[in-house]
C-alpha cells in the first residue's frame, strides 16, 4: 500500500508539473521572463554589439530593481553571431532550444534576413530589429517589429528638404551609398524622391570597410553635384568629407541617421562643420521624458563612455526597450507571445518622449519609425542642431511598392 501511495503522489506531482507548464508560455515562469539576443562580439560591428548588450542589460536591471513587470524579472541570454549569417542561424536555434520568450534588440541586415523566415515559422516575436532594410516590414511580418531609419524614406526626405523646403532649384544631388540593402534602399529612395521634383541624382557606391573613396568623389565632381547624400556608417561619412576636401571639392554633405554622431569631428576634422544629417532620433542635449529616462538609466548602470548618450543607436535601443516594456505591462499577468505581439501592435502613436518620433506599430504595420528630422553639425561645439523638426517623407516606403 505504501508503494502505491508513493506512486500516486508521484503521479500527481507529474500531472501537476505538466498542467502547470501547459498553462504558461515558453520562456515565462512564475517570476521571470527570458529574452534572447544576438550580436557580434568581434569584427567591425563589435562596438555596437557591446553597446546593445550593455544597454539591454541596463534597461533590464532598471526594471528588475523596481520589482520587474507584474512581478516577473527580466533576464537575457546572449549569443555571439560574429555578424555572420551562418552563425546567426545556429544562434537562433540555440536560443529557441533554450526556450526564450522573445528576441530583443537585434540588428544587422544580413543576420536578420538569414533568420527572417525561421522567426515567422517559430512565431517568436522580435522586438525590435534595427536592421536597416525595408525587407523587415515590407511586406508586413507579424513577428518582426522594425525600428530604424529607413534608407528609402530618408532619401525622399533629402529631396523634400532640398527641393521642397529650401527651394534650391539648381541643386544637383549625388548619392554615395554603401552597397548593401540599407544603401540600396537609400539610393532607391533618393531616386524616387528626385523624380518627384523632376531631377535625376548621380549615384556611386562603396563597399563597407573600403579605405579609399577617391574614385567615388571624382565621379561626383564630374557630375557637378552640389549636395551629396551619404548612406553608410559615420566614420565612412567622415572619410568621404575628408577625401572630398583633399580633392578640393566642397558640396553640402548630408549624412544618414547613424551619422548623427558627434565623433565625426574626431574622424573628419574641422571640415565636417556644417554637414547635415537626416535623423530619426532626438538629440542627446534635448529634454524630454524619454531622453531623460534614457540618460538616467545610462548614468546609473553603464560604465564610461556609455554612461552618456552620444550616438543615435543608443536612443533607438531605449525606444525599442520602452515599446517592449509598455507592451509587457499592458499584457498583464497572463503573458503569452501572441498577446505580447498584439499588445505591441497597439503601441502605435505612443509618445516616445523625444527618443524617436511617433511609434508607428499597428495591427497592419510593423514599421516603427516614419518621422524624420534634418540636423546640422557644428564642429566647434561638437554637436548637432535641428534644421527641420519631425516630418513625414512626401512618399512613404509602403507607397513605393
Amino acid at each position, binding site marked *: 500500500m505504501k508503494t502505491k501511495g508513493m506512486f500516486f503522489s508521484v503521479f500527481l506531482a507529474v500531472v501537476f508539473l505538466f498542467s502547470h507548464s501547459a498553462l504558461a508560455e515558453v520562456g515565462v515562469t512564475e517570476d521571470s521572463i527570458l529574452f534572447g539576443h544576438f550580436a557580434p562580439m*568581434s*569584427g*567591425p*560591428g*563589435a*562596438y555596437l554589439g557591446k553597446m546593445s548588450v550593455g544597454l539591454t542589460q541596463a534597461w533590464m536591471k532598471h526594471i528588475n530593481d523596481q520589482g520587474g513587470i507584474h512581478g516577473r524579472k527580466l533576464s537575457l541570454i546572449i549569443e555571439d553571431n560574429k555578424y555572420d549569417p551562418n552563425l546567426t542561424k545556429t544562434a537562433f536555434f540555440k536560443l529557441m532550444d533554450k526556450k526564450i520568450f522573445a528576441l530583443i534588440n537585434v540588428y544587422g541586415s544580413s543576420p536578420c534576413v538569414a533568420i527572417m523566415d525561421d522567426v515567422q515559422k517559430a512565431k517568436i516575436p522580435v522586438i525590435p530589429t534595427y536592421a536597416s532594410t525595408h525587407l523587415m516590414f515590407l511586406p508586413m511580418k507579424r513577428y518582426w517589429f522594425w525600428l530604424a531609419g529607413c534608407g528609402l524614406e530618408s532619401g525622399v526626405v533629402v529631396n523634400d528638404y532640398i527641393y521642397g523646403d529650401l527651394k534650391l532649384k539648381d541643386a544637383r544631388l549625388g548619392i554615395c551609398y554603401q*552597397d548593401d540593402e540599407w544603401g*540600396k534602399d537609400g*539610393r532607391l529612395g533618393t531616386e524616387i524622391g528626385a523624380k518627384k521634383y523632376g531631377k535625376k541624382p*548621380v*549615384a*556611386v*557606391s*562603396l*563597399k563597407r*570597410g*573600403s*579605405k*579609399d573613396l*577617391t*574614385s*567615388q568623389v*571624382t*565621379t561626383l*565632381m*564630374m557630375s557637378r553635384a552640389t549636395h551629396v547624400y551619404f548612406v553608410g556608417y559615420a*566614420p565612412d561619412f*567622415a*572619410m568621404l568629407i*575628408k577625401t572630398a*576636401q*583633399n*580633392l*578640393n571639392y566642397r558640396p553640402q554633405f548630408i549624412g544618414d541617421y547613424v551619422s548623427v554622431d558627434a*565623433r565625426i569631428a*574626431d*574622424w*573628419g*576634422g*574641422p*571640415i565636417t562643420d556644417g554637414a547635415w544629417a537626416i535623423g530619426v532620433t532626438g538629440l542627446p542635449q534635448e529634454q524630454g521624458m524619454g531622453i531623460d529616462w534614457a540618460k538616467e538609466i545610462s548614468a546609473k548602470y553603464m560604465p564610461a563612455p556609455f554612461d552618456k548618450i552620444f550616438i543615435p543607436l543608443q536612443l533607438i535601443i531605449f525606444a525599442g526597450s520602452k515599446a517592449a516594456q509598455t507592451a509587457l505591462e499592458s499584457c498583464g499577468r497572463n503573458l503569452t507571445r501572441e498577446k505580447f505581439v498584439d499588445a505591441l501592435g497597439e503601441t502605435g502613436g505612443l509618445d516616445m518622449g523625444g527618443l524617436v518620433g511617433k511609434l508607428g506599430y499597428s495591427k497592419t504595420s510593423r514599421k516603427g519609425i516614419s518621422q524624420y528630422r534634418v540636423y546640422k553639425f557644428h564642429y566647434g561645439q561638437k554637436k548637432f542642431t535641428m534644421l527641420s523638426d519631425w516630418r513625414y517623407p512626401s512618399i512613404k516606403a509602403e507607397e513605393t511598392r
Partner: protein
Amino acid sequence: MDAMQVKFLAMGIINGFAVGAIYALLALGFVVIFKATDIFNFAQGEIMMFGAYMAMLMSNALVGKLGIVAAFTLAFLISSFTTALLASICEMTVVRPMLGKPVLSIIMITLGLAFVLRGGVEFIWGPEELPFYKPFRDAPLLVQGVPIAEVRLYTIVTSLILMGVFFLFFKYSNKGLGMRATAEDQETAFLMGINVKRIFTMSWAIAGIVGAVGGIFLGSTVGNLVPYLSHMGLRALPAVILGGMNSITGAIIGGLILGVCENLAGTYIAPHIGGGDIKEITSYVIVLVVMMIRPHGLFGTKEIERV
C-alpha cells in the same frame, strides 16, 4: 576631350598612384620575405595594421609634449622599430619551424598568424574607429591645377625612396646579396658561410618596417584606424603577383599600376555597370588576365624545375 576632363583624368591617375604606393609598400613587404625565405606571408596586412596602431599609440602619447611634427616623426621611428621586432618574433617562433614544408602549410600558418595578430590588436585597442593624428595639412596642394592631398604626395615620395633603397640594397650590399643567395638555394648559401637564420629574421624585420610605413601612411590618409584595416593586405596581393613574386621593381610597379587601374575603373566604369564598387575586384580581374598570358607575372622569372 575638354580641359575639365583632362583634369579629372590627371586627378584619377595621380590619386591612383597614391593608393598604388600603399599597395606597393605592402607588396614590397611580401616580396622581401618571399625573396629571402620562399615564404609567402599572408599576415603582411596585419603587420601593417599593427604598425599603424603603434604609431597612433605613440603619437597620441607624445603629441602634447613635443608638437605634432616631432611627435609624429618619433612615433614613425618607434613604430617602425617595434613592428620590425614583432615581425622578427613572429618569424622566429612561428614561421621558422615551417621551413621546407609544403606551400599550403606555410600559407595557412601565416593566415593563422594573421588571425592571432588581428585578434591581438582588437583585444588591446578595441574594434571601434580611433582617430589618427598626423602632421599633414588637409587642404590639397595644386599640381598644375590638379589637386592632391599632401599626405598622398608624401606616400608616393616615400614609397619611391624606399623602393630605391631596397633596390640598391639587394643589388650591391653584402646582406642583400646574402638574401638573394639564400633565396636561390638555402643549403648552398649556408655552406658558403651565410648566416641563413639571421637572413630570415632580417627579411621579416625589413617587411615589418615597410609594413609599418605603409600602415602609417594609410592611417594618415584614412584619418582613423580599425582592426579590419588589415584587409588592405588582401587587396595588395594581386600587385605582388602582377609584378612577379621575386621582383622588387615588379612589386612596386605592380602596386602602382593596380592603384591607378582601380581608381580609373572606379571613376569611369563603376557608374555604367550600376551598383557595386568595382574597385574591389578590378585588381583580381587584371591579375587573372595577366596570369593567363604570363604565368609568372610581368617581371618574375620562370623557375626551372628538376626531378
